[in-house]
């Protein structure tokens, strides 16, 4: 099972990195989302994989590691905030500049100012 999870993390990372290196904002946002999945699963996996042992006190003897879960839970919510922010930036940049390219020609200059 571990090998499948590891390959999945690797695949999502590779996909995220490739999309992140594209030149359009929306694609970069998609890449970041993909990378977020990979990172979250990776962090979660640092608690090692355990099946059938949710970290709820009670009948079970062994529990999965709760700490990475708590950290990843907030990470998921924060990454929602991040994705929302980045996509709004992308949208507003597109509406302002009329293009959604992420690279600008010269430092400090917009490719196109005005309508």
């Amino acid at each position: 099972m571990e090998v499948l999870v590891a390959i999945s993390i690797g695949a999502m990372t590779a996909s995220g990195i490739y999309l992140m290196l594209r030149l359009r904002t929306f694609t970069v946002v998609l890449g970041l989302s993909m990378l977020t999945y990979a990172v979250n699963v990776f962090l979660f996996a640092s608690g090692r994989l355990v099946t059938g042992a949710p970290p709820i006190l009670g009948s079970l003897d062994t529990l999965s590691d709760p700490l990475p879960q708590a950290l990843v839970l907030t990470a998921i919510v924060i990454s929602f905030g991040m994705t929302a922010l980045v996509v709004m930036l992308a949208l507003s940049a597109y509406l302002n500049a009329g293009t959604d390219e992420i690279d600008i020609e010269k430092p400090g200059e917009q490719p196109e100012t005005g309508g």
Partner: protein
Amino acid sequence: MSLALIAALPFIGALFPGLMIRAGRNVCASITLSATALALIGLLMNAPAVFLRGETILESYEWLPQIGLNVNFMLDGLGFLFALMILGIGLLIIIYARFYLAGSDPMGNFYTYLLLFQGAMVGIVLSDNILLLLIFWELTSLSSFLLIGYWKHLPDGRQGARMALTVTGMGGLAMIGGMLILGQIAGSYDIHVILQNGDAIRESELYLPALILILLGAFTKSAQFPFHFWLPHAMAAPTPVSAYLHSATMVKAGLFLMARMWPALSGTPEWFWIVSVAGLITMVLGAVIALFKDDLKALLAFSTVSHLGLITLLLGLGTEYAAYAAVFHIINHATFKAALFMTAGIVDHEAHTRNIRLLGGLRRLMPITFTIGTIAALSMAGIPLFNGFLSKEMMLQAAEETGLWFAVIATIGAIFSVAYSFRFIVHTFLGPVRDDYPHRPHDPGFGMWVSPAILCVLVVVIGLFPAQTVGGFVDVVASAVVGNYVHEHLAIWHGVTPALIMSIIAVGVGIVVLAFQRGLAPVWDKAPRPEAKAMFDALVSRAAKGANELTDALHDGAISRYLGILTVVILGYAVWAFVSGTHVPGTRELLPIGPVEMVFFAVLITCSLGVVLMHRMRFVALIVISICGLVVAMSFVRFSAPDLALTQLTVEVATIILLLLALNYMPKETPVGTTFPRRVRDVVIALVTGGAVGGLAYALLTRSPSLPTISDYHVANSYTGGGGNNVVNVILVDFRGFDTMGEIIVLGIAALVIFAIVEAALQGPASRRLRNWVPDMPQSRDRHPLMMVVVTRMTLPIALIVGIYIFLRGHNEPGGGFISGLVVAIALLMQYMASGFAFSTERQRVAYHGMISAGVLIAVLSGLASVVLGWNFLTSTNEYLYIPGLERIHLASAVSFDLGVFLTVVGAVMLALASLSRIGLRAGEGVNLTPMDVDPSADHSRTEMRADRQKEN
């Protein structure tokens, strides 16, 4: 009073004037005055201990003991003198400024800056820790920047402030280095320890670098040659600032430091030559330039430079007698120079000019100002019966004892000093009354002349009875400087000494020089000389250009390049770490692979690949990526993380809706923008990185943790300490509640930033683009379909109850504030999607901003509640709650914290999506106040209130 409180009072006082200016200028001035007066009283309360019992008061509080930085204060004679000057003259300046500043000047800001500066200065002179001293030192640079640049509308003010900050700031940086070396040599950063280790410091091989670096700080602050050029440019400040900074405080800080470090650093040939020569040059140069300045304040500025040089010279000579004279002259200079600056300010205020060439004859028009100015200027010239005479005699005496050349050059300095002092009197006040003043001057009100008048009384009283008034005081201060008891008999008449002869020469020749001043001025003006401001500006602009070029080269606007470099560098480090480390094979027992897992794995890999292959079709890519998210959620279910699975599912829904809505206004296709080799390169980067991360994950998963985890503690204490069975939730709201609080604050900020971005986008070019926006995809005729409206309306109460249920059970079962917040947010979101923005907003009772702030506030308050009860921040307790008819509810106090989380999450998600809806509104989407476009049960024409292309507001 505690020394820490004395130093803190100005800072505390600084909070008020800037905020309370609406209460009026007199209130502001009174508060400023009270803060200063309180600090002064506190200081005076310590006077008996320092002066009668001869104690050195030490006070210490730990701050960062690991690096030797502690809040240690020390009060001895030297610190007392300086604190007295800073606070005492500060009082007079506050009164003077109240009447000096014009109606259009923001007085609240002025007093706040002044108090900040005052606090920093008091901090310097009371510090017993050199690191603490450095902090206050930098604070004086910053706050004096605000004061000098107070008149922001004047370019001179801004440039002068910038130059002062640059020069003194650079000096401060050098001094940090010097002080650290000094502390290393002495083995302590406490000044009283350093002062006792003078011999060890002087013998150290690091003595010279430390000395040079510290002197750089002192010389830049005290405007010693060759750093004297910033001081005259700082004269663009309002006169009260000049009077304060350049008589008693800022420029004296450098002198204070040299006096403070005198026992540790002086007494070597290096100290003697560097300090005394710099002082000598500064003294003569300042005096000569001052004579030829037509601006009263510039004249005073260069005279200040000259007098600072004089004191530096005395400190540099290294004898106890000279140090004694230095202390005495510091007192005298502060009194007469503050009075002179205020006189110049009065003249400027009344005659509307400070140009000496336009003045003259003011004696008859402004008799009070004339009297004050004359007394102070005569003291500056060193005329008997005034205090300046006494210390100047001592300086000449000390120079004469040092050597012939010192005596000659000091006399030359004294000649010019006499000349410019007399010029100040003669060309401003004497001569015939003119009829071409820019404004007919007369004496100002009592409030403006009282401060310099008080100083003039001091000038005369000290001048007449030095031994009786300040003799004992100077003894104590000078003893503190040199480190052992010294006493000099201060008197007007010592008999015919070489110093007296030099003084007589100075006065005689000085008057002759003044007689020729008008003739010499054109020659002086034409004489070539290095222009410090031009050199400084050239240096600064060259540095700025270099910085710009470097930044442009590194930061060329190609974000994809930065991201690529970032990835490759991280990868490089990872490979390096892997290659240089040692590895043991994984021994952890692996889980078996079942058919279900194989299916999900295949879906995930397909989708990861698919999103790359299909990313040009953005809608498709979105769908595919959401499948990845769902598989991730499923894997959380499989690997025993129900909370994560719920969160991932709900977040996935919210994210995809948001991206879909945003995509509506963006291009739907991505054109091919890169060349084939570049794509190959990116594929290689992505594959190598993915492989590395995957490999790392595999290595991690196949090995058990080598160290015991802290999770065992969490599990063991979850129920007993946190009152909950769901360990994940207890960690979130209890064990690591502080982290969670930070997270929800970040989330709230992100939502507010989104709101602000949209607010900004609705102005300017984006708004024009939106108004002309034409849908690039087929639009449904029925935007609010009956089925969806009915279903979402029916789901809403159910969803809300589910939300409450998940929230309440969260402490013991999977759930909690985050998840229920998302569930409720999605339920509300569905209303927006079904019936539109206007319909939903009209029914919204609470603003989302308010919800976010309420959430954060509740979370913080529930944390503070435990502090009030005497526990640590965010400690929780728990209780069972019995409500008739319901199961018993296990309620932990952390539930209120969780409520804060819940509210913030709902508010943040909703604010982000509502912001998007506003973009849609601007793009001309119709506004409907009814739930549906077509209401099958009613008359068609009445229900349809659609106002096409109606704009917001």
